């Protein structure tokens, strides 16, 4: 098979902008984990699709707004995570759960806004969907139902597993020099761990590439066809890009002392993976005792911010050394992440105008289907 993915989709500013508009601007995408905004006034800020967004808890209600004050365009919340009212630090405009500028100090004396103008002062709000402990946001003026992006089985698996997350979350960001799509092509490739992670991940888990004959035939037919995907078929195909559940048995499941102190999700000694299209990856390398939540945020054609969250399953009782558990596991997870990041950065570095097109094998049928879908979207053959 030959891939339809052109180097432009990884290198070009124009393709990046088009992708932001046609794909990220239309789909539900991961925003944050609910435990980070579970208390009154707790907030998280991110920059997605070029939009600074704040998601904040108002007396138990969670809302997402553009993180820009309506007065002088100051960022309302400065930190990436924190807990304070939604009040601008510049001139102290305060906003409520509806995004209204509820408190403007000295409003009548010095601003002299009319009642009508005052009513117009409302932050732009973005719709949220909260699945278990996972919060998605949508920037489209006419968002698709989340059930059109993810099928019911996937949403149920995501809800069930994420409800097992503890509320103590370790997080960090890596600034990687590759296009975000390379990460997901890599995650859908079970043949890479034995070559890229021989001394780390592949020691604990054996991922076996399998060929799905029906999918392989479908990918060959679709990728060589000039016929564009129709929207309904494209949306149905997209729902297959997200999946989750047991992926590979753990060869030698470790039993750490802290495992006795958390409520494990499930009971199987398997490596679990969840891929939420387009750019969320969750894994449990401990058979449901802990989870890593990876959000690949595109920031430029060749740059991706990788936000990594690490949580154990819910504690059955608090224990003092839980920070040490999180820290030691994050350092361990860094080894695997670093190996993947290095490979993808070298792929990105080798891409250029005359680079050969990829030559995927039959085991990569899912990547081929994603490629066909992506190219048709980018070339305007259908729209989300």
């Amino acid at each position, binding site marked *: 098979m030959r891939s339809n993915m052109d180097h432009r989709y990884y290198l070009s500013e124009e393709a990046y902008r088009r992708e932001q508009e046609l794909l990220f601007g239309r789909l539900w995408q991961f925003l944050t984990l609910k*435990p*980070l905004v*579970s*208390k009154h006034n*707790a907030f998280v800020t991110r920059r997605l699709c070029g939009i600074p967004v704040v998601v904040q808890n108002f007396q138990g209600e969670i809302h997402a707004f553009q993180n820009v004050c309506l007065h002088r365009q100051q960022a309302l919340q400065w930190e990436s*995570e924190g807990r304070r009212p939604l009040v601008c630090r510049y001139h102290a405009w305060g906003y409520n759960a509806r995004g209204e500028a509820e408190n403007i100090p000295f409003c009548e004396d010095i601003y002299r806004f009319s009642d009508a103008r005052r009513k117009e002062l409302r932050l732009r709000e973005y719709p949220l969907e909260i699945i278990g402990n996972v919060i998605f946001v949508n920037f489209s003026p006419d968002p698709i139902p989340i059930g059109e992006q993810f099928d019911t089985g996937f949403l149920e698996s995501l809800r069930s597993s994420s409800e097992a997350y503890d*509320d*103590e*979350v*370790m*997080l*960090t*960001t*890596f*600034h990687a020099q590759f296009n975000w799509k390379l990460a997901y092509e890599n995650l859908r490739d079970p043949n890479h761990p034995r070559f890229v992670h021989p001394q780390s991940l592949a020691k604990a888990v054996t991922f076996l590439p399998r060929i799905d004959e029906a999918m392989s035939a479908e990918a060959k037919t679709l990728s060589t066809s000039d016929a564009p995907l129709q929207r309904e078929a494209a949306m149905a195909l997209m729902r297959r890009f997200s999946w989750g559940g047991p992926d590979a048995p753990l060869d030698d499941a470790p039993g750490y*002392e802290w495992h006795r102190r958390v409520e494990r999700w499930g009971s199987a000694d398997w490596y679990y993976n969840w891929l939420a299209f387009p750019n969320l990856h969750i894994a449990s390398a401990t058979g449901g005792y802990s989870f890593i939540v990876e959000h690949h945020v595109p920031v430029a054609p060749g740059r991706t911010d990788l936000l990594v969250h690490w949580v154990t399953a819910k504690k059955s009782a608090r224990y*003092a*050394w839980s*920070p*040490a558990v*999180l*820290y*030691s596991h*994050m*350092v361990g997870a*860094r080894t695997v992440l*670093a190996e993947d990041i290095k490979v993808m950065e070298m792929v990105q570095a080798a891409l250029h105008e005359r680079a050969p097109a990829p030559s995927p094998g039959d085991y990569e049928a899912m990547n081929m289907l994603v490629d066909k879908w992506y190219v048709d979207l980018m070339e305007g053959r259908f729209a989300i």
Partner: protein
Amino acid sequence: MADHEPLLIVGAGNLFERALLQWRQLEPGREIRALELEVDEIATLPESALFPYAPEKTRVFAAIDSSALNFARLDLFTRLRLLGYRAATFVHPRASVDPSARVAENCFIAEGAIVGPEARIAYNCHVGAGATIGFRAEMQHSCWLDAGVLCGDRCRIGTHSTLGPGTVIGHGVKVGSYCALEIPGQHASDVPDRTYIHPLFDRAVRILSA
């Protein structure tokens, strides 16, 4: 060294070997014994291994390296205390500890360290060679300062925080609890609880909880 009761050094790793070596060098007349633990014994500490050493006649020193934010060492120290043992503190004769400073039990103050006036070092801390603790600075329990760390006057290091070589904490700066600062450099403003600055990570790692 004020204690002259027999001393039992319990633990594993570099601190264990170093404490044994240096204590024997500095107090050749003292009865100093060693109980080296296997990794899986640190969490369980078989009481039978301690049987020959009566708590009322023996001082102990729990010596485990700084892994797991010093929790392993605290765990061992706590087990020994619950069995009735009192712990000794090691202060190298070439360390300078101001008479007004307070250093609690099971601490290790290495050669060349300087502990300033009215500084307070809580139990189970490690102050590496050449490290400096300023005037009225405070180290809460189970901290680990590596060699050459500089903590300014009136600064505070939260419990279970570990500071790697070359870390400089400015005057009055508060480092939160459960932090690991592993990249050399100066911290001129407060460091929140559960912050991890490590060469493997592009940005600080944080733990947030509801």
